């Protein structure tokens, strides 16, 4: 009930914003000039320049009066765009089509929940012309820092088609390869993800030392099982065959061994430490085995295999956003290697 009321309140703001969008279209020249100013500025003055022109959204009521004066000139545009808006009613278009699709919905004021959800999803795209409209009047006012950042990103995405290529930002954080340029839209997200990964690495170190195994009950069961010379488990089907076989037969042997024993995790970890070749064969046979528990075990096995085989290898070519955080990836591998050293004692 409360959620529906909140959506209704958001719906009531759609009509004035759509009308402002129509008014904005006539001032395209002002927007273009601002783009020129934006591209010529450096990084630090860039933020301050935009800050001086930021306007709180509460001013939207006051902006209605200038629109009334321009009303006769906009009637033709309304008639033309309304026809195209009906055609794009079911499809979420881009650019101006998206902006004018909201206008008929505002007039209808329907109570259909499906349309309300569609309107709510378009709410974020409507914010962009609102910010752009405010900048056209260049009124100096200050507002809270966080909504200002949100408006800026929305504004920047609106300007993106007019600028050839994307504007890139140098990262403030120190990196080994020097400054790395990323998409301006993703800068804030990448910084947040770096902090999350650093925090996860610290938590990972704490939990990794406490538990070198995944399941407590399986660990206890494995500790109670009798072991032979070399630490291998006794009473397994493949103990008679030994490890001499290669190729597909090793596939079946390892798979059968995993399915038969209850402590699959401990058995798999121990066999992996013994022979790396067996680990590679097991990774190759992963599509044949189903089940969420086996999948989880293979996920861990893959990580251990990666740590053992590629500790001294070159850095991989990751995607752009992972490339920025390459320094963060190395500690988990070392922690995994330490985990393997600890498993040898078990």
């Amino acid at each position: 009930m409360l959620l529906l009321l909140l959506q209704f309140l958001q719906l009531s703001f759609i009509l004035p914003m759509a009308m402002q969008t129509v008014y904005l279209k006539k001032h395209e020249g002002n927007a273009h000039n601002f783009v020129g100013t934006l591209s010529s500025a450096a990084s630090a003055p860039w933020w301050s320049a935009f800050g001086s022109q930021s306007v709180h959204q509460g001013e939207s009521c006051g902006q209605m009066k200038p629109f009334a004066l321009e009303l006769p000139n906009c009637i033709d545009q309304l008639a033309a765009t309304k026809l195209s808006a009906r055609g794009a009613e079911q499809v979420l278009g881009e650019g101006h089509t998206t902006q004018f699709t909201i206008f008929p919905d505002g007039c209808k004021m329907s109570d259909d929940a499906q349309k309300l959800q569609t309107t709510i999803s378009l709410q974020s795209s409507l914010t962009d012309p609102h910010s752009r409209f405010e900048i056209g009047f260049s009124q100096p006012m200050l507002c809270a820092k966080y909504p200002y950042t949100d408006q800026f990103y929305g504004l920047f995405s609106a300007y993106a088609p007019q600028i050839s290529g994307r504007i890139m930002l140098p990262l403030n954080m120190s990196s080994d390869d020097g400054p790395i340029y990323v998409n301006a839209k993703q800068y804030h997200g990448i910084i947040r993800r770096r902090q999350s990964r650093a925090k996860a690495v610290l938590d990972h170190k704490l939990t990794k030392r406490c538990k070198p195994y995944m399941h407590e009950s399986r660990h206890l069961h494995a500790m109670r099982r009798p072991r032979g010379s070399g630490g291998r488990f006794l009473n397994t089907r493949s103990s008679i065959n030994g490890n001499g076989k290669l190729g597909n037969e090793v596939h079946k042997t390892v798979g059968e061994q995993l399915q038969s024993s209850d402590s699959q995790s401990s058995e798999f970890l121990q066999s992996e430490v013994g022979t790396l070749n067996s680990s590679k064969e097991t990774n190759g046979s992963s599509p044949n085995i189903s089940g969420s528990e086996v999948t989880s075990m293979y996920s861990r096995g893959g990580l251990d295999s990666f740590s053992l085989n590629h500790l001294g290898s070159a850095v991989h070519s990751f995607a752009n956003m992972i490339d920025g955080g390459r320094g963060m990836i190395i500690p988990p591998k070392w922690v995994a290697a330490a985990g393997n050293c600890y498993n040898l004692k078990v």
Partner: protein
Amino acid sequence: MAGVREQDQYMPIANVIRIMRRILPAHAKISDDAKETIQECVSEYISFITAEANERCQREQRKTVTAEDVLWAMEKLGFDNYAHPLSLYLHRYRKTEGEPASARRASASASPSMQMHPRTHPHSHPPNYSHHGFGMFDFDPSSQGFYRDDASSSGSGGFVASFDPYANIKRDPL
């Protein structure tokens, strides 16, 4: 969260390999480096978008990350080419498979080979994965066309597509 388990950091590599194999010929092989690279890329992509969606939920004081939040986050981060096909997919999915969530779970349990490992995201609270979420991906022809572009982007798109339908189910108790 208090403790982030190791198996929660990455997607299960068996599922990642299965998705990679779907567009490769039967005799093709995938190196271990490629598997691990795609696994890390896919996991980071999911965390990247979900963190952005979660930030919007925290700003609006909501606890449930919905499909609209995910689409909004993709558009804000510049993944417009992904958000548009996914919005079409979501719209078509809700039109055909909207209400009967329990019936879908009952029908999906008939195919255990489609199961995915349930896991919780460490930094936000998106809905958990389940088997029918992955199965829903095969229904949409536009996603299939979208899937054919190249391996890594289709892998990412596939997982995000499987993420959306479950958010719709999650909204029922509200």
